[in-house]
């Protein structure tokens, strides 16, 4: 990345409209997640709920770099990826309510967000299981001569699974345009990266499979966006995989059942200082690209969207029990 001295972490230049767009996207995710946590305690949302608060810049920066025809594969911590990709907050919220108006008809819940219009292939809750999927999606594109890129999100924990290594090798061997995005938030549940990996440099791991790779500050949306654009361009132009490690941090517990015994409050606080939203707001204000009135307007716009999403979910309907065994096999005719 070219470092111009604008005082921003990334040094990237940004125009006002685009800056507001990025901030808006991150605020949508943040407020959506906060609302989800609230609704969980009200028992409107059940099952496992994994929030991506703190990691918004990764989802937003990456999705900015993708074209509508590209594919996305994500994990169970995917509300942010789904929102940034363009799935409506209402469809996601209704899904978490278990309503049939949800994007997966209430069959999937928080961990299994799917959408065909944006080519969003989950919502995968077996750690590592999305990587081979992404390889296959890219293989199909290659076989059919399409110029699409498949963007695959996964956590640092997935790097320990065999599927990570098998997928890196396959994608490089077969020269497939997969963008592997490691959302490295330093922990897999309670297991810190250095207690899970004998060598913690993930970029080097990917490189050992001949996959072009780099790391970026995942707390700075402008850096992430710039890196993502380079990576997507590379994958599309060269028909090769790219591994992008986004160094980020989750501010909340792993899920709603985590007493967080494995990290200190001080550590979390330190990372919060570098939060992607506060950082961007501070930077834009300093550069005269954002004022309090504009920020308040963005917040209000987001609040309205989330209110509508909750209302949509509340007014949603339960799928009839008679339909229980639908979607086990395809319905023809």
């Amino acid at each position, binding site marked *: 990345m070219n470092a111009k001295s604008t005082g921003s972490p990334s040094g990237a230049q940004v125009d006002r409209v685009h800056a507001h767009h990025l901030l808006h996207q991150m605020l949508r995710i943040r407020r959506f997640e906060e609302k989800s946590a609230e609704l969980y305690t009200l028992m409107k949302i*059940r*099952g*496992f709920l994994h929030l991506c608060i703190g990691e918004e810049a990764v989802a937003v920066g990456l999705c900015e770099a993708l074209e509508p025809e590209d594919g996305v594969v994500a994990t169970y911590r995917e509300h942010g990826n789904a929102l940034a990709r363009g799935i409506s907050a209402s469809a996601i919220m209704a899904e978490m309510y*278990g*309503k049939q108006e949800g994007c*997966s008809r*209430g*069959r*999937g*819940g928080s*961990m*299994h967000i799917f959408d065909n219009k944006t080519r969003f292939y989950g919502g*995968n*809750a*077996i*750690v*590592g299981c999305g990587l081979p999927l992404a390889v296959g999606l890219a293989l199909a594109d290659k076989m059919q001569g399409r110029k699409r890129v498949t963007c695959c999100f996964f956590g640092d*924990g*997935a790097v*320990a*699974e*065999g599927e990570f290594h098998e997928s890196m090798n396959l994608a490089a061997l077969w020269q497939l345009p997969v963008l592997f995005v490691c959302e490295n938030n330093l922990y*897999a*549940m*309670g*297991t810190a990266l250095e*207690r*899970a*990996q004998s060598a913690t440099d993930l970029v080097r791991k990917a490189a050992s499979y001949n996959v072009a790779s780099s790391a970026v500050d995942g707390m700075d949306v402008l850096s992430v966006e710039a890196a993502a654009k380079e990576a997507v361009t590379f994958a599309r132009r060269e028909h090769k995989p790219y591994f992008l490690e986004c160094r980020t941090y989750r501010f909340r517990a792993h899920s709603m059942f*985590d*007493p967080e*015994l*494995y990290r200190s409050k001080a550590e979390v606080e330190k990372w919060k200082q570098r939060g992607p939203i506060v950082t961007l707001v501070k930077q834009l204000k300093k550069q005269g690209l954002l004022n309090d009135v504009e920020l308040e307007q963005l917040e209000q716009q987001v609040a309205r969207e989330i209110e509508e999403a909750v209302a949509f979910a509340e007014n949603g309907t*339960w*799928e009839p*029990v008679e339909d*229980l*065994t639908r*979607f*086990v096999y395809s319905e023809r005719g």
Partner: protein
Amino acid sequence: MSKNEMIQITYREAVREAIREALQRDERVFLLGEDVGRYGGCFAVSKGLLEEFGPERIVDTPLSESGFTGAGIGAALGGMRPIVEIMTVNFSLLAADQILNNAATFLHMSGGLFNVPLVIRMSTGGGKQLAAQHSHSLEGWYAHIPGIKVLTPATLEDARGMLWSALEDPDPVLIFEHQSLLNMEGQLPADAGAVDIDRARIRRPGSDLSVITYGASLFKALEAAEMLAGEGIEVEVIDLRTLRPLDDATFLTSIASTHRALIVDEGWRSGGISAEICARIMEGAFYELDAPVERICGAEVPMPYAKHLEEAAMPQVEAIVTTAKRMVRSNG
């Protein structure tokens, strides 16, 4: 402590006590799995054990199910007595190769030279709205495999007592702990210890119908039996406890006196353990039957998230009651 002293305990604590006792009794025992230590166990079963026994014996692993299960097999071959914890049965599929192709076959492939004294614990089952990658009941599937034993402790006594017997077994033993039982609370003798792992138990005697079940469905069957008793129908409830080897003698004997059998299994019907039980009844008690054997199983669908659909996908008390009534009243 006095012999009759009872303590109040949850299923989770009973399993924890069993692990603690094993670690104290045998220094070859160690616990191996994802987040069993620092995090305190994904379902808080192993909470506090790291502090008590240290990281050599409460071993956190990376997300590498095949790797650490295989390592457990290797350690067992090397003279240790590992307890491998896999978070849920769905994730055990990443280790299915090691379980089936190594653990279950080693003794046989080596012509009896190498046995694998390994215990693998995992959670199973639905009811928590965890959807299709965290809720299945695949224990019946594992029961298909010769070379391993498959335990499904339902009661506090079995949660407390099966582990030690499993560790004493020279061969691989899989223990399935149903997610919805972890918070179940009750009384257990303070000196509760090992229990057998090869016999089914009659949890409620009755003369009109044998209900054959295991795991969390046991309590649904018992609840149904209580309701049916109010209507003059006496149900005998059999807790299989162990799915392999299957103690068919116990349910065949029961059927010889009740002449009716209903199987309740949270697993899928087609090709499931319920089909095996049904076949054993056909082979061993066909002429005792006054009515066709019936089954209440998990619906043939990946587990849905929405609560009402999840409930509809699992055996429920109501269905047991109506089916039992129909079976008993349609006099043979």
